């Protein structure tokens, strides 16, 4: 027994996560708090070791999408002009501006649409995968203001004003980020479906704790599942940090 056992087991995690899911079902206050980045029960539970992390600053061209006819514009002013001219009789309801990977997306969302649906099926950020849609597999993990969150447990309409980062922003596709490279070098994936969620959690961990121990990594991954059961390597590849 060379390693100290993790202090947060998956069973304990599930117990806590169940409370979160229950809270979210009753009302949206818990989720609202999570989106706002405040230290609440929700944030404590999902990312117990990182209530506050540095927000990654990313900038880029913004895209503004007309919620009525889906036309795209390069500025909010252009969109407003278009809207005023083309849709004078329509009320602008349920419109939010989401900041994803440094770009702003203004679009209409139903108040009950989960963030994961909007990211994937409306905006096309397909690195964000759906596993359980219940908040217990971690596959859809993204960074919200630098903190790993389950996108299936957040509502899109409550994420305005927060910096969302998905795996698409970590590398340019040719040169891997240090965390991605560590996963790659250690064969820390198999089918790859859960990998984006784990990588996002790892990014947050490494930023906060550049030299994590195995227990630190296990702790950070306690909300994640890998059905190929390759978590041994997923932990190993981060212990001691990444180059």
């Amino acid at each position, binding site marked *: *027994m*060379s*390693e100290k*056992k*993790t202090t947060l*087991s*998956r*069973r304990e*995690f*599930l117990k806590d996560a169940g409370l979160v899911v229950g809270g979210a079902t009753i009302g949206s206050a818990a989720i609202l708090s999570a989106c706002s980045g405040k230290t609440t029960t929700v944030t404590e539970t999902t990312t117990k070791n990182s209530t506050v992390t540095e927000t990654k600053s990313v900038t880029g061209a913004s895209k503004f999408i007309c919620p009525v006819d*889906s036309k795209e514009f390069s500025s909010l002013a252009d969109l407003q002009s278009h809207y005023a001219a083309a849709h004078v009789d329509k009320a602008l309801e349920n419109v939010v501006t989401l900041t994803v990977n440094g770009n702003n997306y203004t679009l209409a969302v*139903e108040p*009950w649409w989960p963030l994961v*649906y909007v990211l*994937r*099926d409306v905006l*096309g950020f*397909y*690195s964000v*995968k*759906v*596993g*359980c*849609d*219940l908040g*217990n*597999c971690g596959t859809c993990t993204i960074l919200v203001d630098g903190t790993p969150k389950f996108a299936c447990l957040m509502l899109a309409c409550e994420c305005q004003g927060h910096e969302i980062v*998905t*795996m*698409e922003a970590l*590398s340019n*596709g040719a040169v*891997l980020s240090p965390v*991605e*490279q560590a*996963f*790659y070098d250690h*064969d820390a*994936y*198999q*089918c*790859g*479906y*859960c*990998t*984006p969620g784990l*990588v996002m959690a790892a990014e947050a961990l490494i930023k906060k704790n550049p030299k994590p121990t195995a227990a630190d990594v*296990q702790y950070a*991954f*306690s909300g*994640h*599942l*890998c*059905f*190929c*059961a*390759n*978590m*041994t*390597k997923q932990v190993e590849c981060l212990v001691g940090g990444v180059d």
Partner: protein
Amino acid sequence: MPYDAAKAKEFDKKTIKRSVVDNPAVHDKSGKWIMTGRAEFAADHFTGHKYFGVAKLATVMHAKIKSVDFSEALKIPGVIDVVTVDEVPTWSDHVLWYGKEVAGVIADNWYTAIRATEAIKVEYDVLPAMFDPDVAIAEDGKDGTANVGLIDGTNLHQRTAVVRGGGAAEGFKNVDWDFTFEYPWTTSYAHNELEAHQSIGWWIGDEAYLYTGTQDPYSTRTSVAPQFGLPAHKCHVYSRFNCGGFGGKTDDWGSYAALAMSKKVGGYPVLFKNTRYSNVLTRQRSFSIKSKIRLGGTKDGKITALDAVFYANEGANTAAPVGDCIFGLQKTWNIPHADIKCIGVLTNAPKRYYWRDVADPPGGYNTESALEKCAYKLGMNPLDFRLKNVNPCDVQPPAAEGGWYGAHPWGSFVIKELLEATAEWSDYRKKFHLPATKKVKDIYPNEFKEYADWYHGIALTAHLDSHGGSFAAARGGMLKANADGTFQVITGSARGTAGGTTVCCTTVAEVLGARDEDVLLGDWANTDTGLNPGVQASSSHTISISSAFYNAAMEMKYKMTVMALNNAAMKKVGATKDDLEFANSTVYFHKGKADEVAIPFASLGLGTNTAASAGGADGTGSSVQNDLQKLLGQRAGGAWKSKFNEKGEEYIKKGDKVLANGQSGACLELAIDPETGVTEFLNYFLVVDTGCTMFKQGALREIGAATELIHSQGYYFGDVYDEETGADISTIYTEAQFPTYMDMDFSTHHFADYQSEDASGTFGCHGIAEPSLTNFCTVALATFNAIGVWVDCHKGGFTPDRVLEALDRGIGADYKALMEA
């Protein structure tokens, strides 16, 4: 740490032979797509331009649908249309289990579709149901008894039957001992993939298109096209990345629904997608086994007679692949007189399929348990008992008597060696004791202090695994040469795990002498561009695909040879084809130092070349297989040469079924606290025959992963049903409430790859992860060794509550009863 690294290293040197074709520098060819979030799974297409389909599921076990009322569902904003069971191939108005599809909704987003299914009202004519397999057996054939409705008049059908040496009756005429062991039903598992099954279907004119989660796009096309009245070439299937290293990789379940729904809405793309719960209910799951095993033999511990019957709960699947549950018992052990049967039992439960592996974990659990108890009763060390009865490699009973591992020479068989290697590595003989007689401190006076007063248990098994199948069918491979000297491998197989597609590339690199980085994975898993490679789920298919690429690479090499000989520099030095050497993506001629010429592939002008070829044992592939084997055998220092006869082309005859079985040895040491029932692993030694795989690190990765999984399963899995309704009420799968590495200390797990010298492991090893699964039974056996009471796995895993329940009978109680019986 009880694990002695120096000793392990010594062990490595002694028993592990590294293959020259095993190159740890080989990288997973599709890994960078995954690591950058650009791996496209089935649902990752048509952003903003698709509808969403969801199925409504039955809430009864057995019924005929009387009526379906869609009116309320259609009123919900966002609902586009609905489908009935008549509109979706494979759906039916005959409900056979709780959770079968009874209707479907198409909506503009997934959540609306789910909501709408809840508004559909279904009326049923409920029929008598058979949920309990014991009831299905007991009541079968009686007048007036209901049956499941899949086979007229019965719920039972014989799957496999092996009679050897005149049968069991002949053997039991002359035995010194005669023991019978019975095991209740093992649990049923539903290890569905993390990606709830999803497919996008769309139509352009009368041609169907699919993105779907399958490892075998060609089989999907073959099964889907006729259902829609299409010729194969009008059905296009794409499946590059595919979720689920452990299950659900070849299922066409969502494809029919996606295409039918798309057709209903004029061909617009429809993503048909399961919820987690519907995935659990609708997808095929593993079958459970119960058995009665009677063994007899001589005083010195030789088993001479066997009479065994295994029942397999198939659920509502007449085609459940349950027959191989007898595989390990049939083929691992050398028993001259035997009757072994497997009988399928149909029930109104979800369709049964694999238990991750083909069949052996539950069958092996029963078999190994019987052997262990037999050894105790005979007063023998269980390892010695196994060594006495294991089938040695050179024994080949006639095929007419079932053979031991097929009537062909490619079967892998080093079980005896694995038993010995595992025993040596783990110091099994030194640590073994009778049940409930040792505490941890007795074995480890200076270690594991925290468990000093817990009971120590140990068990060692080795078992032949049925995973592998055959590669009797021809497989296709297409290779394209690029102008820059690189090569593109185009295979029709999806990437479920890292091994298959990578091994195809490695084969090409080996044959052409190309650098690994110069062989690229091209447009793969696409029925429009690749050739049919078959499913890439098993090592055997990986072998046949690789042989196809071997053929293609040989053709390419011929073309390159011609080009090189036409090169001016080569002409000047008078090079002949026999003088050329292909290495490091360069053609070398070095007759003498003065004449040395090196031509990079890039300057050969390869850009227009393609090569496509078939491999496998039923055509020209057979001789090519042997050529490749010879090549690699020579590279391996001739170690394999003895495995081949002089006439390689006759070695595998046309139509021969070739198996590539997996095998491993495992020794588990555990500690059990009798006060709380808590179990901790102290050491787990796993020695796996990886053959001479080209992608060793991929194989080892899978083996480690499978071990992690199997221990999670062994401890915690087990489905829970409401037997009144047939509903799955377990949260283990729907909420994934099982532990992972986060809960388990895998520093106690030690792996070694034992590389056997047989031929079946060249490209993918003997079943990639499966061999490690058959040793799941060590958990049961070591638990029995620790506390002397039996914790059957028929009610679930080896959780503390179940250990405590067994301990209510008293420490050592079952062992005492066993010995007195």
